[in-house]
């Protein structure tokens, strides 16, 4: 009984323990280190895709685990990702209108 109570106390209501959050933070810190390394090391044509991929991975990890979207009701994911998708669509169109993507 004590074991069950302790396990419940140590585990987050949304399904993650404090140790789990620390692991996520360490992964995020490592990715940040890799991001910063692209400033010093020449990654050639991989520079831009690698940097954008790392940015998206960090974004999704914070939203999914720290903001608990992964464990919450799907309606919250819908509200947030629809807002995000709408923003991306509007502003990519905006940038394309001003010929941002043409070298």
């Amino acid at each position: 009984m004590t074991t069950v109570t302790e396990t419940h106390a140590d585990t987050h209501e949304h399904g993650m323990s404090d140790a789990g959050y620390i692991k996520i933070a360490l992964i995020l810190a490592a990715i940040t280190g890799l991001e910063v390394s692209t400033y010093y090391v020449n990654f050639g044509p991989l520079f831009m895709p690698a940097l954008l991929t790392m940015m998206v991975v960090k974004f999704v990890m914070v939203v999914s685990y720290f903001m608990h979207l992964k464990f919450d009701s799907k309606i919250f994911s819908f509200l947030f990702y629809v807002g995000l998708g709408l923003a991306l669509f509007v502003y990519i169109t905006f940038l394309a209108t001003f010929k941002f993507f043409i070298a």
Partner: protein
Amino acid sequence: MWLFLGSECLLFGGLISTYMLYRGRVVNGPHPSQIYDIPFTSVSSFVLLMSSLTMVLAVSSAQRKDDAKTNLWLLITALLGATFIGGQVYEFTTFYREGLGFTTSLFGSSFYALTGFHGVHVSLGIIMLLSLMGIIKKGKITGNKAEVVELIGLYWHFVDIVWIIIFTLVYLIPS
């Protein structure tokens, strides 16, 4: 809160895309690559990232109904946020001394508008964290305490994810 954060995506999306459009428009004053201090901004980014960890630990403590630890993690989060803001003030002061004012160039205007707006959001977050600490200490939350801490936490994590994007698109990708 999620609906509000969705609308905030639109606000920051506008500011980020305006910066992307204008970052190369430098007639007067310094160019981005001449003034950005990547090691310094990397440390600031790391500080803000770690504040997300302390915030989620505050939520976790609140769910265990441990008020003392909740307040401790909230205080650490606020201090990390204040450190980030201190860094931003230092950065703005340095840039201004190096000749980049708000009206110096389109790059300057869009840079200060974007990062300044983000800084205001972090500052508001710090005020919210400190107010929450006071409310918890006075025992004025009648409903689910963990839910209130989580709502403030959502806002705090949001300013962190916005910085994740700003750090990559503004600082690490050259114009």
